[in-house]
């Protein structure tokens, strides 16, 4: 089996690689979205602490 044959996927390239590409997008999206959520919560917490400190001063 050579590489061009492998990428052609028996003339199903669009469908097979489309599926694996969609899976890659979903995995990457999930990782980025989870990290983004964690960052936004941490930012929220930091602004809360700043607020608390400002009040106590």
């Amino acid at each position, binding site marked *: 089996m050579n590489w061009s044959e492998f990428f052609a996927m028996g003339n199903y390239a669009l469908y*097979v690689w489309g*599926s*694996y590409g*969609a899976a890659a997008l979903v*995995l990457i999206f999930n990782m980025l*979205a989870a*990290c983004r959520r964690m960052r936004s919560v941490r930012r*929220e917490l*930091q602004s809360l602490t700043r607020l608390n400190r400002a009040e106590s001063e």
Partner: protein
Amino acid sequence: MFFHKYASPKIFYGFAGKLIPWFAGVTSILLAIGLYQGLFVAPPDYQQGESVRIMFIHVPAAWLSMFAYMVLASAGAIGLIWNMRLAEMAATAAAPIGASFTLLALVTGSLWGKPMWGTWWAWDARLTSELLLFFLYIGFMALQAAIDDPKRAARAGALLALVGVVNIPVIHFSVQWWNTLHQPASLSTINKIGAPAIHPSLLIPLLIMALAFTLFFVTLLLVRLRAEILHRERYTGWVTELVKP
């Protein structure tokens, strides 16, 4: 009971933090093996040719779409019945991940349906019930986003999720109950000699990918759950202590 200790959001936050790297590591290894097996080792199908490789994405995604929903609904029920905050947060954390894999199952199903059935979409029982599952996830997230009070948001979301559980057996049995375009189950169907109807050369990569997707879900669930814990507990002493510079 032992799990009460881990049901405390504070303790679970630390515990989950220790687990995440391990789950992430095992997930990456399984994904690498599954992809290699699925793309290079598994033979083309005698009827479907190379397009059968779509199965290694499609079936695990569809399985996870239902598994994640059961996790969401069970967590919601535990939150409702025992008033456990950690379970409420777990339901919220599971929703976006489950929704994304439901979408993946629909998209890959479409990409597989076009060359095999000649159509991207049909209003068939299996496809329609899976689409309904996607809308249940979206409805759950929209409902929770619309309610400010976290306790009320958790209760409303859990009720919606529990009503939606009816859809899970409908998805699973749709290919038996109705005459559909979708092929019947490959894993639970037993052939005449008492073995699964699917050949081991296709079954092994399929199971590895399903396990990899499931562990990916668990890893991401833990990450999102930690974020959710910090958010819901933001006024408590231990969280304030944690973010102190």
